């Protein structure tokens, strides 16, 4: 089980959280101008890296707030957690995989 740090509540077991997939996926700036392929990208395509991944978690049975986590998808190590709106941290151990 993962140990994830909520930026407001501190470290808690994975079972307190709900997973929300890739972080930093902006809503299209000009939705009316998108082609079907671009809509497909926005709705269905997400990164799936083997290594560090910025993803969203909801502290569903705690403070009920969304936040972002940088986690390694191979070792499952949580490398950082940070509040929404904050930039993805640059960590030495995160390598160049973006």
């Amino acid at each position: 089980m993962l140990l994830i740090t909520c930026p407001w509540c501190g470290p808690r077991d994975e079972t307190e959280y709900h997973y929300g997939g890739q972080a930093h996926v902006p809503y299209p700036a000009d939705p009316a101008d998108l082609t079907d392929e671009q809509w497909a990208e926005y709705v269905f395509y997400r990164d799936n890296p083997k290594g560090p991944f910025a993803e969203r978690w909801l502290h569903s049975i705690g403070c009920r707030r969304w936040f972002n986590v940088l986690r390694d998808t191979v070792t499952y190590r949580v490398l950082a957690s940070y509040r929404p709106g904050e930039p993805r941290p640059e960590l030495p151990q995160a390598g160049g995989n973006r």
Partner: protein
Amino acid sequence: MTAEPLPEHPDFLWRTPEPRASYDVVVVGAGGHGLATAYYLARNHGITNVAVLEKGWLAGGNMARNTTIIRSNYLWDQSAAIYEHALKLWERLPEELDYDFLFSQRGVLNLAHTLQDVREGVRRVGANRLNGVDAQWLEPDEVADVCPILNISPRTRYPVLGATFQPRAGIAKHDHVAWALARRADDMGVDLIQGCEVTGFLKDGDRVVGVETSRGRILAGRVGLAAAGHSSVLAQRAGFRLPVQSHPLQALVSELHEPVHPTVVMSNHVHVYVSQAHKGELVMGAGVDAYNGYGQRGSFHVIEQQMAAAVELFPVFARAHVLRTWGGIVDVTPDASPIIGTTPVENLYVNCGWGTGGFKATPAAGWTFAHTIATGEPHPLNAPFALERFATGALIDEHGAAAVAH
């Protein structure tokens, strides 16, 4: 009921060749799907100058880790067609491959625990029958006739309100399936190359002309990806994206028991699925871990939940011990249906996105993927499962019939 003895292995299985400089077709990944693809490339299309490249050992990925449930009771016409084609192939493969891989058509029960489950189940039985798939709706007492150790008491938290039943469904010995396909593909001249990781692609403009591997460059007229959980990693190296996410999915077995469990039982709602292996282990699976991962292990809390469900459904399991747990990495698509077809890279084809349920499809995945690679065009059975559906919106939403939470 007595336990069936395991069949003897043939003493010859496949050669261990050195990779050649070039092949007509290179298939990446020697799981069940890659091996079935090679087998049908040779058998159905006469294409035998083929290599199957495997980074680890043959069929050591999800093929060796799954709970071996085979069924074709999916909801939509496109899925019923491809999974039923697979089931018909399963029914003749042991003879065709001359290898008894213990395909046992003991039936599958998909339990309903809520009114909505009942409605979904009855609807699916209707849809299955219209598609020529054997399916029945069973009331709780009929469910108990099929599987007497199931607790159908109305006083459980999620009582069994009925079940769909597909009598032709079953299980098979997954390793033996892989070895059976490998032996026949090898017989027909296919090179099965283990310990050979594909690390990149050789391209001429938008066309693939070969692969980079841990054992050097190999030229190829056509390349087929059958890499399950690693498909998006490979696609990225080839220069395109796939709408798949890789998740850990785990399974576990108990120690050996006398035969007590005569069928396969799946529950979508309390989320456990159970069968008894030929040797006597209870084989159990659950849902995927919610997060993306490549670590080939799963979370303990998933085991805890699946055990709670199993013991309530099967009180007789209460004193069984877990012997082993393990995980595989499954590639999940947004509509819980696979992707089989062409890619934006010419001569590069993909078979992926089978997620939690691709073992049952092994022969049909190989059949249709071989057709696509051989002809450059989809087979009618895999045409609906093209990558383009995510842009056209013609999704094949099988989250209900996929039966594993993801």
